[in-house]
């Protein structure tokens, strides 16, 4: 079976990994994990620290050998060099030779991908534009911020137009602006390369919620759930929050329930779309200014940990939905 005929880009079958801790002790980092990531999906690998996310990514790249089970990347075992021709990898803390410029880094990694010089030159320019580093192309990495290094690492992962993108905690250590930039970049990559599978690990739920179509939940090395985000969050919500200001001093409403008053105005919780439309009409008649209307769909965080304490959330049962 060729890589194009293989229906899944990454598949793990009953994979386990045990690390030796000294002479006698052992630690089971991953235990009997099986899943298959279909082509073109954006899949998040979610779990607390030590749940085995990075181990799974590293096994998929052939850095670590599984103790048991089978991994296939585009139909090839990761130990085969060929499997990595399909993969672009962004590690948690990318490190480059600091004396190289951004352009030199991409040329170096492009050569390792066996790209032709003429093609590589064009590709490097494209990618530097994509990640917003065109102006810093000749600058040495030593002067780069963490966000710039992360974007450059993203560019090197995209060099060979890979079919699978593996990102290990891509937003780790970035400031909010850096996170936003990188999130937008991942979204843009998915738009421009819709056939590419993006598989990334994170323990930041909001990142996963905003970027992924599906999520794999891991806890203590075990697979707890693999489902679509929509299924997990319960699809479209019919509950809204409406905030308005400039209301007359004496007023009464027949819709919703007032839940708070803040400098922004008064906020109501409203059930149902009809009631929302009635409320907006009413507010307009009263001469109020609507500041915001928000859907009250539960976030991934609320779904996963809403009813559990932090301590419970760190146990397998806590993460189990």
């Amino acid at each position, binding site marked *: 079976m060729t890589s194009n005929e293989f229906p899944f880009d990454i598949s793990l079958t009953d994979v386990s990994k045990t690390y030796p801790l000294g002479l006698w002790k052992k630690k089971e980092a991953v235990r009997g994990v099986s899943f298959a990531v279909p082509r073109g999906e954006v899949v998040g690998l979610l779990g607390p620290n030590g749940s085995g996310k990075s181990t799974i990514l590293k096994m998929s790249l052939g*850095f670590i050998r599984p103790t048991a089970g089978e991994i296939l990347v585009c139909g090839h075992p990761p130990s085969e060099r060929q499997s990595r021709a399909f*993969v672009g990898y962004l590690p948690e803390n990318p490190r480059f030779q600091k004396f190289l410029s951004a352009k030199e880094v991409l040329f*170096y990694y492009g050569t390792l991908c066996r790209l032709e010089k003429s093609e590589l030159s064009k590709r490097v320019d494209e990618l530097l534009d994509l990640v917003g580093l065109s102006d810093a192309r000749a600058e040495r990495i030593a002067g780069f911020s963490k966000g710039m290094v992360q974007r450059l690492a993203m560019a090197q992962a995209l060099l060979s137009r890979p079919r699978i993108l593996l990102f290990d905690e891509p937003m780790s250590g970035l400031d909010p602006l850096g996170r936003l930039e990188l999130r937008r970049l991942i979204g843009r990559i998915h738009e421009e390369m819709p056939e590419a599978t993006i598989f990334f690990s994170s323990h930041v739920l909001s990142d996963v919620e905003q970027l992924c179509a599906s999520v794999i939940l891991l806890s203590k090395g075990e697979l707890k759930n693999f489902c679509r985000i929509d299924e997990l969050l319960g699809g479209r919500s019919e509950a809204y929050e409406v905030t308005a200001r400039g209301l007359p001093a004496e007023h009464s409403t027949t819709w919703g329930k007032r839940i708070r008053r803040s400098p922004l105005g008064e906020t109501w919780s409203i059930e149902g779309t009809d009631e929302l439309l009635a409320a907006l009409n009413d507010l307009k008649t009263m001469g109020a200014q609507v500041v915001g209307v928000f859907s009250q769909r539960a976030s991934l965080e609320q779904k996963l940990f809403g009813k559990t304490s932090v301590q419970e959330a760190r146990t397998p049962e806590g993460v189990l939905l």
Partner: protein
Amino acid sequence: MIALRVAWITMRELIFERVFYLLLTFAVLALGFSLLLGQLTYAEQAKITLDFLLAAVEVSMVLFSIFMGIGLFKRELLLGSVAMVLSKPISRSSFLIGKYIGQVAIQFAVMFCMLLVTLAIQSSFHGDSSVLSVIQAVGLIFLEVLVLTAMAYFFAVNAGTITAAIVTLCLFAVGHMRESLVYHYNISISRSWIWPVIMSLIPDLEIFNMKTIASYGYTLDWIQLFWAVVYSFCCAAFFLFIACVCFANKDIAT
């Protein structure tokens, strides 16, 4: 081709390393110190100076092999920059061999400079030694460096930084004493079977030592040199091969 690309980056990386300049300073100081020591002698000033100069070249190059090779390789593993390279469709052997070639190339350049300095000092003394004997002696040190660097990489793959450095240094010392150790084994009463096995695994580095011969102006014949080249290449290839096999099977959990 891929290995050569890795080698080129390794060479540039080494030039930007602080340890490279520290070792370079050590090499310059060692040469200067040898010159000074030679001047202190009563007779045979040219011979003794050359002997010290060649010893300075050897010691500097041994330190280059061990500390730069192990340090550079270990740092790549610890910082995780190796993951970026190995995520590309290249074999681990290409990476390791590339690193080795890059380091050896830089060592060759440093040794060439040291050779020129040695020749310049030697010519100022008008001693018995010939230019050819000095070139041969430095050339043999380079062959020894090829073996030591390969050994350093092998231990760097399989052990921690300090352990790898200590073991390589010990093997360098034992490699130079191999002949006398074998002699003592032959005349000892209690002979263990394990001893010959161990000794056969340790390369005989005395083959590459012609410092004293060179200081008297003698040269080796081409057949001896040829076998020294063959021996060096075989030993380096052996250590590099097992380093590649071990590295290919190693978990890289950076």
